[in-house]
């Protein structure tokens, strides 16, 4: 026990400053919580506008056909509207379902499989939807004229 001063040097100074251990998890869940609220507010405007124009104006759901979509996407406003709606709704919805999977799937394997399927569905739908908006041809050359918007033949 009497090893003298050699051991003393190894003891931390009682005055060494307390360092809070930084969390290793990052702020992912905080950002996801903020995103749900911010995107939710924007989505209310986008989706209510979408429903009003597609279901309430004119003949409502009966007016929707290829020519109706072509007429809408002839305007950059509706292209941006639908693109923003696609991305925000898909991220908002995917994050919501992720939360539900985390809550109810208790086995690691089940949770992993469900989240893998969710990520796959997200990727396919967002990539497909984005490509459709950007590569849409309102006047396909081989289609019957009566199915197309009036500006195709004019």
């Amino acid at each position, binding site marked *: 026990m009497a090893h003298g001063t050699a051991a003393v040097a190894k003891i931390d100074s009682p005055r060494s400053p307390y360092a809070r251990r930084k969390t290793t998890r990052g702020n992912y869940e905080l950002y996801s919580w903020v995103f749900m609220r911010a995107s939710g507010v924007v989505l209310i405007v986008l989706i209510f506008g979408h429903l009003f124009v597609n279901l*309430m104006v004119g003949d409502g759901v*009966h007016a929707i056909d290829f020519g109706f979509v072509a007429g809408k996407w002839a305007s950059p406003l509706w292209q941006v509207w639908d693109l923003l709606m696609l991305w925000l709704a898909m991220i908002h919805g995917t994050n919501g379902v992720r939360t539900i999977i985390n809550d109810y799937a208790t086995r690691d394997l089940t949770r992993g499989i469900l989240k893998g399927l969710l990520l796959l569905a997200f990727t396919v739908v967002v990539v497909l939807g984005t490509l459709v908006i950007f590569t849409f041809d309102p006047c396909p050359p081989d*289609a019957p004229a009566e199915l197309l918007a009036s500006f195709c033949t004019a």
Partner: protein
Amino acid sequence: MPTAPAGTLYRGREGMWSWVAHRVTGVLIFFFLLVHVLDTALVRVSPEAYNAAIGTYQTPIMGLGEAGLVAAIVFHAFNGIRIILVDFWAKGPKYQKVMLWVVVGLFVVTMAGFLPRHLINVFTGGH
């Protein structure tokens, strides 16, 4: 790890049931969204393919489904605002029950504006 939840902290009443309804409507809307992007993507196949798919949305049964979908969206939207107020407004938690009844009131008013017009379109519109 227990295979089933051992106990429950669910307390019922407005707080829990609005939370349950928010989850149920959210999942419904999400699965419709997946299908809806796929059916809209048919505009890249051909006008005929898109018109055939959208034609199935114009039948009376699907028209009722659309009414249910819009109801789910309207509840999810208004209850979402309530959740934001509970989180960010200092008095939000105190008034969460009152705000749920405001949500229900706004829901009834909005659906009263939407349903007659949509149902008339569904059952008497058409080509």
